[in-house]
């Protein structure tokens, strides 16, 4: 049964620099990087060494704890370098791509005719498995688990997020193949949740082998965590898997073509981007050429991902494994004098959920927010603000506090199994005391993982 959900809590942060709906090409960059730090909690075990030749889809490293999970090279080329950090921890694998892409052949298969194990084998062998993440804990799914459902969100509601209806237009076949493949992996349903406020692209609305739900409301309506909570919440001992919509299409292509084609359309957005638009790009691709000349001079923050959950990167860095957008916003490292731009000022350029700054007079205004903390870290003082943007039947502040004092029993009771750090991104945004809430939740999940699972 399809479900329609309306959430009343949440917040849409209106930012300048939304990507124009134009798909643009970018000059081929032969420099690719896979960062092992993109996969939380992973200890990589290399299967290649510097100088090896690889094809797109060749395994380059494994998860040491779960060696059946393989990570594939997104392109054909040569492994040029393996960058290590402290204690020789592998940080990233550099690949120099050849101009002509060559693919490993995993064989064209019809997912609807495969068994569960065959689907699993295809995904694990091709390196497409890491696209599947699990809740609780928010790490790569465990192939041995039996998920009670798989959730795919058909839209991203975060600030300046790419429009999936635009990106996925014409990708219906690959998306459908991916959904069919996923449906084999669970005894329950695949839930595809559409934005109730807009008309979804046919790639989504015509999808089969899944239950199509709708959700209305502000961000985080597009977060898969919100959708899980309202459609089929996770209880202790249960596992739910989630996959990003674009990654479903990559999975689908593994079956349709037998190749690991790790290509995505990403949005380059943000107030410091000159002509924000969409680009076609392979996972791990260098952003150097893309960002040359397209962003404003001066101090800027480049984020792989969105402004609420993304990673801070440099201009010559690479797009992250899971990211569908690159956002560029001003850096805010200048002190602000109290009565002009500081805490006593009118605050016309400051966005706030309450009306303590005069910016409330301009409800439709789009902001060029910078990375300033806008204050200092404090103890929790204000109550009730996190609840305004947290559409879960969970007490956010109490859960955060239980993580801070490491009470595993209480974390469990208060619902740690249902959340991922990204669900708390808005809480972190609105927090008057400027506490890094996502980081706290991440630590709590790690604690639960090592102690209870």
């Amino acid at each position, binding site marked *: 049964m399809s479900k329609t959900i309306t959430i009343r809590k949440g917040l849409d942060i209106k930012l300048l620099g939304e990507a124009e709906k134009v798909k643009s090409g970018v000059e081929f960059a032969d420099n690719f990087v896979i960062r092992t730090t993109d996969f939380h909690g992973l200890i990589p075990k290399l299967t290649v060494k510097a100088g090896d030749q690889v094809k797109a889809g060749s395994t380059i490293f494994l998860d040491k704890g779960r060696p059946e999970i393989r990570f594939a090279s997104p392109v054909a080329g040569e492994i040029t370098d393996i960058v290590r950090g402290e204690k020789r921890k592998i940080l990233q694998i550099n690949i120099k791509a050849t101009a002509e892409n060559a693919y490993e052949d995993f064989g064209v298969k019809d997912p609807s005719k495969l068994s569960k194990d065959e689907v699993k084998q295809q995904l694990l062998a091709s390196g497409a498995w890491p696209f599947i993440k699990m809740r609780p804990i928010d790490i790569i799914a465990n192939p041995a688990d039996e998920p009670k459902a798989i959730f795919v969100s058909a839209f991203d509601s975060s600030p300046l997020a790419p429009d999936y209806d635009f990106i996925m237009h014409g990708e219906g076949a690959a998306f459908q193949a991916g959904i069919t493949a996923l449906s084999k992996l669970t005894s329950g349903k695949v839930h595809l949740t559409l934005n109730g406020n807009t008309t979804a692209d046919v790639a989504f609305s015509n999808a089969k082998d899944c239950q199509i739900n709708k959700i209305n409301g502000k961000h985080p309506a597009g977060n898969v965590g919100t959708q899980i909570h309202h459609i089929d919440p996770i209880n202790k001992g249960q596992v739910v898997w989630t996959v990003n919509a674009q990654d479903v299409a990559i999975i689908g292509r593994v079956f349709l073509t037998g190749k690991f084609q790790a290509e995505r359309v990403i949005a380059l957005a943000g107030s410091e981007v000159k002509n924000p638009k969409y680009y076609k790009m392979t996972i791990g691709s260098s952003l150097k050429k893309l960002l040359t000349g397209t962003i404003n001079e001066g101090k800027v923050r480049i984020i792989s991902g969105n402004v609420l959950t993304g990673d801070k990167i440099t201009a010559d860095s690479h797009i992250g494994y899971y990211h569908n957008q690159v956002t560029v*916003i001003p850096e805010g490292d200048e002190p602000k004098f109290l009565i002009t731009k500081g805490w006593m000022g009118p605050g016309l350029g400051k966005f706030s959920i309450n009306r303590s700054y005069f910016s409330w007079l301009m409800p439709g205004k789009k902001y060029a927010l910078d990375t300033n903390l*806008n204050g200092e870290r404090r103890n929790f003082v204000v109550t009730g603000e996190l609840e305004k943007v947290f559409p879960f039947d969970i007490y956010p502040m109490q859960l955060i506090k239980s993580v801070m004092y490491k009470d595993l029993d209480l974390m469990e009771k208060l619902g740690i199994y249902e959340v991922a750090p990204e669900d708390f991104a808005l809480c972190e945004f609105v927090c008057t005391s400027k506490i890094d809430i996502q*980081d706290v939740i991440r630590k709590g999940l790690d604690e639960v993982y090592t102690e209870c699972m």
Partner: protein
Amino acid sequence: MKAIEKMMRKMEPDHHGKWAKFHPVWDGFFTFLFTPGETTNKGAHIRDGIDLKRTMFMVIVALLPCLLFGIYNTGHWHYVAEKGDLNLPYWDMFGDKVIYGLIKVLPLVIVSYAVGLGVEFVFCIKNQHAIQEGYLVTGMLIPLIVPADVPLWMVAIAVVFAVVLAKEVFGGTGMNVVNVALTARAFLFFSYPTMMSGDKIWMSGLQNVASTPDGFSGATPLGELASMATNEPVHASIDAFQAKWTLMDSMIGSIPGSVGETSFIAIMIGAAFLLYTGIASWKVMFSFFAGGLAIGYLLNGVAVNPYLELDPIHHLMLGGFAFGAVFMVTDPVTAAQTSSGKYIYGFLAGAMAIVIRVLNPAFPEGVMMAILLLNVLAPLIDHYVIQSNIKRRMKRLKTVAQ
């Protein structure tokens, strides 16, 4: 701005130098003048424009109408006492009253801030913590909830007591169990009862007036009401009381009382500001009034003495009830933190305030005691609210298991 920043940077103590210990003090001043350039590092890259300084600043702005009105009202009752004339027109001698009020109230504000912030600085140096903003509001609340005649040294001692024992020993701003300003008020009330209750203190300078005409009382309306539950009532009936102290007097605030608590209108301006900006919780505020009204009507029904017959609406406008509802009970640190807990907390506090008022003649005013009591009970209320959430989750798990 650059010049000021440069000057401040010049004065910044070296982290390893002789004055390193005073870095938190410098930091306190610097972050007062400049929102620091500290940027986000992980998690959300952008943050809401509000910080604790802005929040506290908003509360201070909301308190300004009460402060200004309190200054004038202090002046008015001083001249009433001096002339021995209860019928002195309220808006006559405007300038004189303002000047007298300023002379009385400003020192209270200055002492409260100087002593309180001094204690905060000492603790910040000792613990090497950043200076937190909690005292900005507390420092303004304390002068508004004491009689204007209270000696400054008493205020100083009360502030030290409250800041140290109600706040710093628990870990500073955000960690306190009971409201700091009310702790200071309670300390004064119990340590120096002669200065904080009775008939002589509510009209500034009345103690120095050699003789007052017959029938002249310096009591607050609440003090006169409290006497009606005893054998020596000031008024024979509630009508006589309301003839002297009308509802309109309470609305405007032209009644004797603590500096900032008398004017219902001034308090409501502050309340509207706090609610509109979203700084204070309307749930607590609303349920505090609801609790007061509910118990007020209940007492009307069972009135055994004239006091119990007082109109509940009038009740809410007397004494510190409205002030407590808007500025005290809403303190987010000491109030209940859960959404439904806030309703229960506010309601019980409002009800308790009226109960203490009418049923205990030893305390003409019950708001302070009621809020302190509920501060202590707030974690318990939260506990039960959270337990119900936990039970809901457990139940869901059980239905799945079946």
